[in-house]
């Protein structure tokens, strides 16, 4: 037993009463308050642009919101009314194409990095994904133009979707990898020890446990591509008509906003604001949907 009485050769220091401040206490308290205040201030500063953008977009765009905006086609200059219905649909189609290509690729690549890949190939892929994540999106647009648009001999929704997929893949890959790494390894061992093959363990245990987090990461990626303009300029181009053909040019909200906002016409500029508002709301709704879907998945039903 080591809990013998403590050696007490030196006399204990005189006790200070708790009511009396210790040396340096005042400075310590001041510092603590100062840094707390600084953190609060910075949090507010972060929120200010966010809210002011939202309020400004609502203020300028809300008046143009009408059913016609969602059902109508862009009108020629000078004619009243019209809408961006084709651009709303076009944006949704582009997001769908991008997700159809980007999500499986990104998630499977993430699984490879977290679960399978070891050594130099894996670190090379990780490095390339990080670099690709930092490439300006217009570069990706030019790349897809050279590779897809030139080969197909026309602008198309498919080319736009491919460009957006390339923009989202690095985010999806790295988020998937990071979140899979956060799943405790004892769950993977539990599954393997039950005689479950590795690939089923990766998909049904690891990926499923990480799913809510990956869902959030995917939503961030989708929100980002929903507003991307540059990669669409030379790929999906634009269209003034209803179109759901993936091998034809297609309208999209960001490109339509760009066209209208840079035009000299008051009507068009007003419509650009409404388009911006619709884009914000669209991203918000997609986020909400994904939240609902992943939170239900997380409860095991």
């Amino acid at each position: 037993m080591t809990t013998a009485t403590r050696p007490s050769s030196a006399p204990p220091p005189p006790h200070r009463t708790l009511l009396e401040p210790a040396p340096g206490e005042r400075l310590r308290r001041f510092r603590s308050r100062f840094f707390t205040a600084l953190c609060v201030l910075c949090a507010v500063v972060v929120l200010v642009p966010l809210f002011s953008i939202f309020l400004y977009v609502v203020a300028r765009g809300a008046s143009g919101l009408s059913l016609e905006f969602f059902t109508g086609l862009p009108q020629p200059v000078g004619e009243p009314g019209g809408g961006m219905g084709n651009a709303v649909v076009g944006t949704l189609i582009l997001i769908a194409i991008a997700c159809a290509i980007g999500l499986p690729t990104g998630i499977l690549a993430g699984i490879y990095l977290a679960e399978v890949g070891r050594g130099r190939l894996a670190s090379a892929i990780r490095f390339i994904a990080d670099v690709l994540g930092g490439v300006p999106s217009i570069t990706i647009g030019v790349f897809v133009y050279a590779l897809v648009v030139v080969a197909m001999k026309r602008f198309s929704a498919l080319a736009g979707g491919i460009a957006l997929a390339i923009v989202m893949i690095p985010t999806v890959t790295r988020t998937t990898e990071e979140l899979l790494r956060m799943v405790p390894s004892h769950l993977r061992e539990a599954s393997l020890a039950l005689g479950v093959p590795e690939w089923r363990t990766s998909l049904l245990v690891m990926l499923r446990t990480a799913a809510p987090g990956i869902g959030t990461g995917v939503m961030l990626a989708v929100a980002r591509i929903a507003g991307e303009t540059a990669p669409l300029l030379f790929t999906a181009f634009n269209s003034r008509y209803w179109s759901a053909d993936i091998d034809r040019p297609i309208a999209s909200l960001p490109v339509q906003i760009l066209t209208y906002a840079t035009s000299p016409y008051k009507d068009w500029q007003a419509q650009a604001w409404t388009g911006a508002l619709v884009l914000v709301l669209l991203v918000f709704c997609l986020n909400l949907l994904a939240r609902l879907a992943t939170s239900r998945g997380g409860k095991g039903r």
Partner: protein
Amino acid sequence: MSLIDSDRPEEAPPAAKIVVTRLNAYFHKFHAIHDITLSIPGARVTAVIGPSGCGKSTFLRCLNRMHEHVPGATAKGSVVLDGVDVYDPAVDPVRLRRRVGMVFQKANPFPTMSIRENVLAGHKLNGTRLKDPAALVEKTLRHVALWDEVKDKLDQSGMSLSGGQQQRLCIARVLAVEPEVILLDEPCSALDPIATARIEELIDELKERYTLVLVTHNMQQAARVSDYTAFFYMGDLVEFDRTGTIFTNPKESKTEDYVTGKFG
């Protein structure tokens, strides 16, 4: 059953279920266990005891080839289960693990699954169709004496249970895939004495149908529940014998020192 089963010394040694011959395990260059040779008797509880870091868990994980899932880990030697070397290249470790189940130190129910799904996890994750899953859930949970405690909340998460209940759920999960051998890696080390006693009762009951190998750092537990005991020290198998002999009349002085608490 007496505390130490020296009351049946006349019993002929039961047929070996697993024969381990010159088993060596490594983590990269570190030689974790050296030339282990022993026969694990069928339908008995074999305890593996020894101080921390002596290789007892590594030994256990070699028996169902979970050892090789640690990066850099390798094993050499033979582990013969019912006449087949599990390290034969033709043996798929996945198939092996369906016959040799494992319970871990930390109870690890799948957090995304309900209690019911956790019991069926081995089947669900493998995509096997069950004729009567409800009956299997009830039978298995009754077997681990958890049914009465959870029958009204089978759809709740497995994580909502207490530590001891979670560990019994994990044992149920293993039993549901009907293994022949169950490896237990310090299954009670995170549990309180009452939960431990329940797991020990369960182990005693399970040995009628299964071969159990129990790694424990608790010598009293080894003495209470096991029929045979292997004492590991620094990666070597020092002694392997009937539990009664190990605890009352060991051949090696090192074993005696350990079981009498002189070190470890």
